[in-house]
């Protein structure tokens, strides 16, 4: 008997070494997790393994197996398993089992227990992604959940990557395997961690295995920062060859991926000559290509609307030009390509440019070609300058991209393939809000205010959207969204939009123009609107802080006070100039009788603030908020 027991142990040891699934090496109890992994973790992956089995340039199988111990409700998202799929991506199996804290099985769920619903990206009108959602129950925390699923993908461009740890989630064992025909092979790159794969060749099949153990949880991403792959240790894997819905492509370089896309943007029958004639007529008097670009871009903005319809290859190939011309709508690809072919009719070459959009996105990794992109803009190279066009916008000035796509790498789709180029970075002067205000004070402290307002660049959209609202809502918008002192009477007139933005005239009446009184002293605001509306948190940062955009907010305010009123106290002139912020305020009462003139400038010079400079930035803004809170103290003589 004893002998038999020893023999059994020996066999087990052999099995462990020789290919027994890792899953059997872990157990489902929470008490065996090292304290070093539990520290700061809401969950620990006891095991996190996946296998990507590449069959061909168009087919791969993806198997995932996870055992996760959940410590608290912050890890409860694991109890809702959500997988996305479409017609090219089948979920062949899904099983989830939950265990209590001592590892006893609680409940097993199958794919049939899940519900299916359409995916809504809140942007597209029509698209074909769906979600399978499986909700499970946790007996009590801590508990353990085991998840297995298998997908078969029959058209692809990207391959699955692997995140080794995420915020608040540590890992005991993580293993990612890619099996690929050697003739196809793959490329890979690690971010935020350096793990060398174990590579083996078995006949014509190449196998890569990345494995890591005992990784502590990543820290949570700081707000108002970039989305950075390196925040969580991540492996990216890319194919060298792919096939998406019969469209065969290579992905060994940016050039080859650009070439694959370029073909999709070609349109053999764009405009008929009748259709092209108006574009020629519109631009006939233009003296420069820049003028032609502006004229046609304005035509696009005024006549087209964004409608997202993305089905299958339609996620990559734009609608035909004729379709857009007839419907007067399209998504980013379609509208970009339409603009491109309009420019072509007047002899200007341009190139669609794939880009990763979002104000918190970093440039893509130039050294590792993969499809990071989710948006398309248009690049119009000119001998002395390049004009970039955001073709889904109804308000951007020609050449203005804004923080959504600026200052990063775009993949130009050219006849010679793809080429990475930088998009421009906007300057503070590109995003301007200039107000000129006159405030007439009456004997009771009531005021009549007249203001002209001009805005450009990334500030213009706020006012553009304001203009779309009803008259009643516009009045509220100025107080609620723009920080204007709440008025009793209100009138807004919009001038015709300028080439760079919008112009408005504003009249507001206040029964009480001052903020408050103390004795016989009236405390008036320096301006009727907030010049600086920032409230950054006073915290330590290790990641760069992002402003929405660099900008200049400038105001002049002229107070006209009754002749028998005088200034009791006025704030002093002030200037603060740092690496990121320039603030300047001057106040004078000598320009005209019974008048006080205030000039304020607030400039965000750079959008990205280094972590080391963040505390200084907070101190600067706190000081500016203090200065802005200062009042004009007036009194009757």
């Amino acid at each position: 008997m004893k002998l038999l027991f020893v023999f059994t142990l020996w066999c087990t040891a052999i099995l462990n070494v020789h290919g027994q699934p890792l899953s059997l090496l872990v157990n489902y109890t929470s008490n065996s997790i090292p304290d070093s992994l539990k520290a700061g973790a809401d969950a620990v992956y006891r095991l996190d393994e996946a296998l990507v089995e590449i069959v061909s340039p168009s087919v791969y199988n993806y198997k995932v197996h996870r055992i996760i111990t959940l410590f608290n409700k912050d890890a409860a998202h694991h109890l809702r398993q959500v997988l996305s799929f479409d017609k090219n991506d089948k979920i062949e199996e899904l099983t989830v089992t939950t265990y209590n804290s001592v590892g006893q099985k609680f409940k097993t769920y199958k794919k049939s227990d899940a519900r299916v619903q359409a995916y809504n990206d809140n942007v597209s009108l029509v698209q074909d992604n769906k979600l399978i959602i499986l909700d499970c129950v946790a007996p009590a925390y801590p508990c353990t959940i085991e998840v297995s699923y298998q997908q078969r993908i029959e058209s692809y461009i990207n391959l699955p990557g692997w995140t080794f740890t995420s915020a608040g989630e540590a890992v005991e064992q993580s293993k990612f395997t890619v099996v690929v025909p050697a003739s196809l092979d793959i490329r890979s790159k690690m971010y935020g961690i350096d793990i060398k794969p174990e590579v083996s060749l078995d006949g014509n099949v190449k196998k890569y295995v990345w494995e890591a153990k005992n990784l502590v949880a990543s820290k949570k991403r700081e707000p108002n920062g970039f989305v950075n792959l390196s925040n969580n240790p991540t492996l990216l894997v890319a194919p060298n060859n792919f096939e998406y819905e019969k469209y065969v492509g290579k992905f060994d370089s940016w050039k080859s991926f650009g070439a694959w896309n370029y073909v999709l943007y070609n349109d053999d029958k764009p405009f008929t000559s009748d259709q092209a004639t108006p574009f020629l007529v519109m631009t006939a008097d233009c003296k420069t290509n820049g003028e032609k670009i502006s004229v046609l871009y304005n035509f696009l903005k005024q006549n087209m609307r964004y409608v997202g319809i993305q089905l299958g290859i339609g996620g990559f190939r734009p609608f035909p030009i004729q379709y857009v011309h007839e419907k007067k709508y399209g998504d980013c690809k379609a509208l970009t390509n339409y603009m491109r072919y309009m420019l072509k009719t007047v002899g200007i070459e341009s190139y669609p440019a794939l880009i990763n959009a979002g104000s918190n996105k970093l440039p893509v990794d130039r050294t590792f070609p993969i499809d990071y992109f989710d948006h398309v803009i248009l690049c119009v190279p000119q001998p002395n300058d390049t004009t970039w066009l955001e073709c889904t916008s109804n308000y951007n000035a020609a050449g203005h991209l804004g923080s959504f796509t600026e200052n990063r790498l775009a993949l130009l789709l050219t006849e010679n393939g793809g080429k990475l180029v930088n998009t421009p970075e906007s300057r503070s002067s590109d995003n301007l809000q200039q107000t000129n205000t006159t405030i007439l004070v009456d004997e009771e402290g009531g005021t009549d205010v007249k203001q002209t307002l001009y805005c450009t660049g990334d500030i213009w959209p706020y006012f553009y959207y304001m203009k779309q609202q009803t008259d009643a809502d516009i009045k509220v918008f100025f107080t609620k969204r723009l920080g204007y002192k709440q008025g009793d009477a209100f009138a807004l007139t919009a001038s015709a939009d300028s080439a760079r933005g919008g112009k408005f005239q504003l009249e507001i009446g206040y029964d009480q123009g001052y903020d408050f009184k103390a004795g016989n002293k009236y405390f008036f605001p320096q301006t009727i609107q907030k010049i600086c509306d920032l409230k950054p948190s006073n915290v330590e940062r290790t990641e760069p802080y992002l402003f929405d955009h660099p900008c200049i907010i400038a105001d002049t305010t002229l107070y006209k006070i009754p002749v028998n009123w005088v200034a009791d106290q006025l704030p002093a002139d002030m200037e603060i100039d740092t690496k990121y912020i320039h603030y300047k305020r001057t106040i004078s009462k000598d320009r005209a009788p019974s008048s006080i003139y205030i000039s304020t400038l607030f400039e965000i010079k750079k959008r990205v603030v280094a972590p080391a400079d963040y505390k200084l930035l907070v101190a600067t803004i706190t000081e500016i908020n203090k200065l802005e809170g200062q009042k004009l103290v007036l009194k009757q003589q």
Partner: protein
Amino acid sequence: MIKQLMCVVMPCVLALSANAQASLPEFGVFTTQEKTMTGVDFEKGAEAVVIFDIGRAGNNDDYSLVVERRIRLKVLKEKGKERGNIEIPFFSKDNFENIVNIEGVVYSVDENGSPVITELKKADIYKQKENDRISMIRFAMPNVQVGSIIEYRYQSNNQHYGGLEDWFFQRDIPTMYSSFFLSVPTNLEFTYNVHKSLDLPIKIDNQTKNGSVKFEMSNIAGLGDEPFMDAAKDFLQYVEFKFSGYMTRSGSKINYMSTWKESARELMTQNYFGSQLNKKLSNTDELIAGFKAIEPEEKRIEAIKQYIFKNISWNGYKLKFIDNSLKEVWEKKKGNSGEINLLMANLMRGSNLKAYPLLVSERKNGLVGTDFPILSQFNKTLVYIEAGGNKYVVDGTDEYTPIKLVPENVLNTKGFLVDVKEARVIDLQDEKYARNNLVNVVYEITGNNQLKGEAVTTSADYARLDRRRFYKQNKDKFVSRYFVSQYPGLSIDSFAVQQLDDELAPLEQYISFSAPLQINGDYKLLPINQFTGLEVNPFLNDNRFSTINFGNKQNLNIIEQFVLPDNMKPEALPESVVLYMPEKSMVFGRTVSLDEGIVTVQLSLKINRPVYKASEYVVLKEFYKKMFAYLDEQIVLTSK
């Protein structure tokens, strides 16, 4: 529910008649007035306007319900172009409903000023399944410009009259004309409720003899979101329908739900509801014996609620009835909200508690009309319990609300207690508990022009519920939301909470902080509106369409003490003031005093009545405007 009840429509002869809209232009034919219109007086600056919205419902030869819909609208601003993206949801489960005969046309003017008519093509119409119940028709109307007139129509075929939906005359953009014509088989009886504002006329042509009725309204402004508004539906102009019975072949009349009691009796026999309540669930003997042993009953209720919450997973569907039997729910350990709460009622009843299912309509779902037992107005089932002389309303899917409080999302609404004997509509108010916050703050002015202070906030009842939930979900945001956001530059030196999980005690929050002192020449300014949660006046709109529902009564009391440096004195103290709403339904008070170098400010806001009609808005708005003006005043210090 009606969808499940109306399968017994008897043969009849009524069909859709085409008598009604003689005065409206033909489909795709646009009038000069429509072409030149640039806006409507009853809502200036709207992005788009519905010119007309026509619905006609009747039955086809198979006696199933057919609804024809025709909508014409005009785009007035750039944003209004999005109105050209159309989505039509329909109930596709078991092919109950189908959308057919979709047509669309757009009138626009090209760059030369010439009219262009563009038709919607069949190939541009997409039909997609959203989930196992609902599918969606989607299409983008072509060539939509500012100034375009969009028109589309379609037909909805339903298996029976249970598919008849309420008709809304109003939406978020203005509507110039809206009408709905309904004809029903002669053997089918229906009632309707019109929900409308007193100052908007409606024309109702009720042809009782031939079982038809037509409703018409004109010039209705759009309704957007308003602060402290419950369901927009409550304030929209609409008509709701309910079928009350049918005549059998023999001529006898079968009534459906003509009274609340009859409705309850019917519900209690249904497999999808009441018949589940007393079903024995497997392996529950020991569990129920354990529950029964818990005394007093209040603790038993709490124990069962906690058991349900921890062991039965909510699948995210908020429904009032069950999709699966409670036996299956018990077996699978998950279910929709109706299943979970009926399961909880089942366990409670088994544990000797007087527990009843309670149909409710959450505040965001809409008010309950009590004239007729229309079940479609409810969106959820909760559990109503009477124990120890107290009444409890409990939701097994709600983690945070203690059983002593009525869940906030149903406060000031009505619920339908479903029971053969006890059936009734009850008011879900909370007379006992309010949102109670008490804040004590002591400020000191330091030599380096800093304001240092310590504050203790005591949050009880509904205030505790809100803050505890927020704290548990995100501690950092909690501190920012309640303590930092009101004072730019305020930094927290220390923060702690006590009694977080003691449901019987208030939540205590302790902070010490420092903030830059506002210097204004020779003056130093001390803000008084700190830690009040009253940062921004929510009532900025000139007009109000909806009822203001604060949810619960509120008591906010702030006591601030400013310890002045020896060399400073107030320039003048802010006045002590009191503001009242009529009948003291809301009272704001500020008292300010100076005693031995300490300025004491007491602020209080009592909301004694949580619900205000739109007609009271003018007074309420003025109250808030004055209150915020008082709160914005600062204490001005000057040198002695």
